[in-house]
């Protein structure tokens, strides 16, 4: 079927492709077929489906980290926090959560792998404001799920520019919600989402343009 190459603003084009027969996680059989070109909404992975795992994820680069079972109390705390966060951060389908002991990176309470929707919460993350830590990691996952146009509007609102040839990010901004936000737009984004949700009055006053951008993205989300 010849499908229009452009989709409505809030959707993207999925081109015709072959789908292999498979079983869904719930045991439902899905037959193999050719899926026609169609438009799909950005961020349409469905409701949150958190899974706790104990073994080091495949391809995890920090080989010295020790993975272990996440204790019941920690699991409950994490699930309560996830339930309290806005839908745009949590409506991501399957989220795999790990509770390793300590990060290979000094003073790091958590690591995320946004493309695989993984977050690792080290022991130290439970000795601080865990909600902020989880919010920050989910913001990294949200960044990976922004559309190309949404990223462009964020770069514009937050005054970032990118030089891919030299692998340089550039901004004329002098202030950031957290110091490591000056490194690159993604870290700045994760910090800004965290501060937007936890210290909104101050954030709004210091970064009005970014505050408006986030407010527009979040819409009337919970």
């Amino acid at each position, binding site marked *: 079927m010849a499908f229009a190459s452009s989709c409505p603003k809030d959707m993207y084009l999925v081109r015709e492709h072959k789908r292999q027969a498979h079983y869904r996680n719930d045991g439902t059989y899905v037959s193999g077929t050719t899926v026609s070109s169609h438009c799909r909404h950005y961020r349409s992975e469905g409701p949150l489906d958190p899974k706790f795992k104990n073994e080091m994820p495949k391809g995890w680069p920090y080989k010295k980290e020790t993975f272990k079972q996440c204790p019941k109390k920690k699991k409950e705390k994490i699930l309560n926090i996830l339930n309290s966060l806005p839908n745009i951060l949590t409506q991501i389908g399957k989220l795999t959560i790990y509770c390793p002991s300590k990060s290979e990176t000094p003073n790091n309470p958590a690591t995320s792998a946004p493309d695989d929707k993984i977050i690792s919460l080290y022991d130290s993350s439970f000795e601080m404001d865990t909600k902020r830590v989880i919010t920050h990691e989910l913001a990294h996952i949200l960044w990976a799920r922004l559309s190309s146009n949404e*990223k462009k509007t964020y770069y514009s609102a937050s005054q970032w520019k990118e030089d891919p040839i030299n692998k340089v990010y550039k901004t004329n901004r002098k202030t950031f919600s957290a110091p490591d936000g000056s490194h690159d737009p993604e870290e700045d984004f994760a910090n800004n989402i965290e501060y937007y949700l936890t210290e909104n009055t101050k954030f709004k006053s210091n970064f009005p343009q970014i505050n408006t951008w986030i407010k527009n993205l979040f819409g009337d989300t919970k």
Partner: protein
Amino acid sequence: MKALIILLCLTTSCSLTSSKYSSQNPDFYWSILENATEQKWTKSQVLKMLGPPDEKHKHTEREEAISWFYSNRKNNFQEWVFSFDSDGIVEGVSYFPNDLMISSFSIEKIMTRWQSLNCQHKVKQVLKSHVIKKEKSLSCDNNKRTANYNRYNEVEYISVRK
């Protein structure tokens, strides 16, 4: 066609305001992307094509090396970056297609256009302190030409280096 556009632009004052935004012609953008490094454009040739940059960035670690940034005049989104070597010759150029151009710079169009350049889809793991990222790109001509795209297969930028 490409050569004609370049010739017209270089012999007349084909600047940002007179040509780029009035025509919205994908050939114009392709010609800049593909010719800036291949034909070793100087700063004055880039100035003639696009006018003065919105911002410049000196690379402190590489003496005299500099990048020029251009934004789209209508929406202020970043559109071009030119990287010049110490002799003022373009060593790399990146183009960020805007909404109106995005269909002319899809992964499929790029693959068709560069089909003779041994293009391959690549996924690279990138570590940034506490984030493990996967960067997806179409890499052609021994990594000299790359198109980075996101999880929705939308091209974010295309880079050509010498």
